[in-house]
């Protein structure tokens, strides 16, 4: 049996080392002797969503996000069915904006309207050294799914409002709406966070949690962790814990 992964908008929403996530999934599954296939697809490509066990989408510039939005809206029915069928969807950075009701820039742009939250782009700087208007910084968060801390980095300008089922909990300076302590979003097997880049490589415990559940659904044996990744995770906490 083969696990099929789709890296969607791989050449458009790929801003901060996001390719690391699909590479991580591949390596972890292969460590467990599970065969993996990764397809790269982007705008205008024909996609058979039934084929996939896990879809990953990363973050992009605001311009590219809206380009992807135009395309993904044509795939709404397929994606809604995919999610309701308990299939896995991992979103990092601003990819979660695509799935809300709408995105407010200087105008209001309809999004997929699969989930109940909506997005607002901010226009004030919260980072003193930044020459642009962004939320930027290192993340330490808690996650209900696992006991280990989550680490990562944010670099974003989107606020997500009206999320009641967050993926992580953290202080309000990096939360979805900058008011609550909620970060990211979960629903069934959808895992979304504003953390950018190599989320899964840097958080081996979260990766193992998600992948072992996925394998359980498919009656595959997933028991082995990537020791190198765990060591890097531990060293980071040792060196940089505040």
């Amino acid at each position, binding site marked *: 049996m083969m696990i099929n992964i789709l890296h969607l908008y791989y*050449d*458009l929403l*790929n*801003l*901060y*080392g*996001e*390719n*690391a996530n699909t*590479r991580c999934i591949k*390596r972890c599954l292969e460590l467990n002797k599970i065969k993996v296939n990764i397809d790269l697809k*982007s*705008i205008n490509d024909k996609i058979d969503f039934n084929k996939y066990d896990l879809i990953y989408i990363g973050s992009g*510039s*605001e*311009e*590219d996000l809206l*380009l992807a939005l135009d395309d993904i809206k044509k795939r709404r029915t397929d994606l809604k069915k995919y999610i309701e069928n308990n299939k896995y969807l991992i979103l990092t950075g601003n990819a979660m904006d695509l799935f809300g009701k709408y995105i407010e820039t200087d105008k209001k742009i309809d999004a997929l309207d699969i989930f109940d939250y909506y997005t607002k782009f901010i226009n004030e700087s919260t*980072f003193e*050294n*930044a*020459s*642009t208007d*962004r939320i*930027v*910084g*290192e993340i330490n968060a808690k996650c209900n799914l696992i006991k280990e801390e989550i680490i990562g*980095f944010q*670099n974003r*300008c989107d606020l997500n409002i009206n999320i009641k089922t967050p993926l992580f909990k953290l202080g309000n300076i990096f939360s979805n709406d900058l008011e609550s302590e909620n970060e990211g979003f979960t629903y069934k097997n959808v895992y979304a966070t504003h953390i*950018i*880049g*190599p989320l899964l*490589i*840097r958080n081996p415990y979260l990766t193992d949690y998600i992948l072992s559940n996925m394998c359980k659904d498919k009656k595959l044996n997933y028991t082995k962790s990537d020791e*190198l*990744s765990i*060591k*890097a995770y531990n*060293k*980071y906490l040792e*060196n*940089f814990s505040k």
Partner: protein
Amino acid sequence: MWRFFVILTCKLINKISKITGHEGSVIGGYYALKLDKNILNKIHLPKYVIGITGSSGKSSSSELMYNILTQNGYTAVYNKEGSNTINAITSLILNNSTLTGKLKKDALIMELDEGFMKYIFKYFSPTHLMITNITRDQPPRNSHPSKIFECIKNAIPDNTHLILNVDDPFVNRLKINHKGQITTYGIDKNNYSYKNNINNLDAAYCPICHTKLEYDFYHYGHIGSYHCPNNDFERGKLDYEAKNIDVDNQLIEINNNKINLPSNFLYTVYFVTGCFALSKSIGLKDEDITNVLNSENIKTKRLEIYDFDNRKWQMLVSKNENNLSYKQSLDYLIHQNVEKTIILGFDNSSRRYTENDISWIWDIDFEELNDSKVNKIILIGKFCNDLLLRMTYAGINKDKIILVEDLNDLSEKIKKETKGKIYSMTCFDKEIELKKIIAGENDD
């Protein structure tokens, strides 16, 4: 009268700052702007007001432009210290002006920060503006290239003559709707170019019709030769193109002139070609430019090469803040035709910001270190385990990798376990420590 006072204050403060051991290139401008925020409006500027901006290569370009102009009898000033914010530019202009508000030179050359440019061009327009490239550069500060593009685009005045590196599709986009003159430059295919897109991460789509751009070749990242399949956008024919490029032997040709490069790094081809195009736009003749470029007095950054245990050790700066600069340094290492040991590592992502983002290591094609001439790769610094993970993903044989968590062990490890010329590519924080280790070894 007030102008007189503001200029005097700026000069005095910068002098005092210099005497007290500070840089003296920024603070005077800060106070001058406090006293009169429109002071830059009130200065009589030279005939040529030249701006140079982009994610990388702007300091080298500014310095070379200064040399080309001054060695051809023009008088010029530029921000030599590399400070490129509004306070620095204000200092540069006021420090070199008379107290009656005249900058009596032929040319003002300004290396400009992409983000701060708009605050400067509010007060005056440059006659010429050269844009070197737009890439992922200091993402925690600049977010992403499309934001840098917007910053530059919105700052460009209508009448400015643009000198554009159109090998970069982001820079090429600046042509669209620009009303002033445009001169383009770029570099031809060479032995650093490649066909497949491994690292083509940005600007993948046509800005007009949003179809994926097709590339004939890449130099690095999204820089190369491309066109839109619907003919809506292309690199096209260039006004000035470096041809017959031989990076290793430091030779190129522009307009059939043979030109010596100041060093054997690919990026020197870019800044030399850019300065050629800019000089031509100002009205210099080919031979005026080539005479300077081929003369011995073009100062280049000295290669930092040291002796260590009867081996050579060359130090390179690791450009963590810009993945494509980092990648170019790796390309340079791989192009050196000797057996080598490479030391990589860092404690901090940047010296300009404290945020430790390490996502960029996944945007760099470390896979190219799978090369038979690489004897060992030594990983140091607080992120050495993250680098180890990256090397593992790059498929590098684990016998080739040495993890050194305690720098006290480094010297012995190098001597006992490695062979070949040593290249270190580390961030500023580790460089100091490595120099101590080299000095310690040479003292024994």
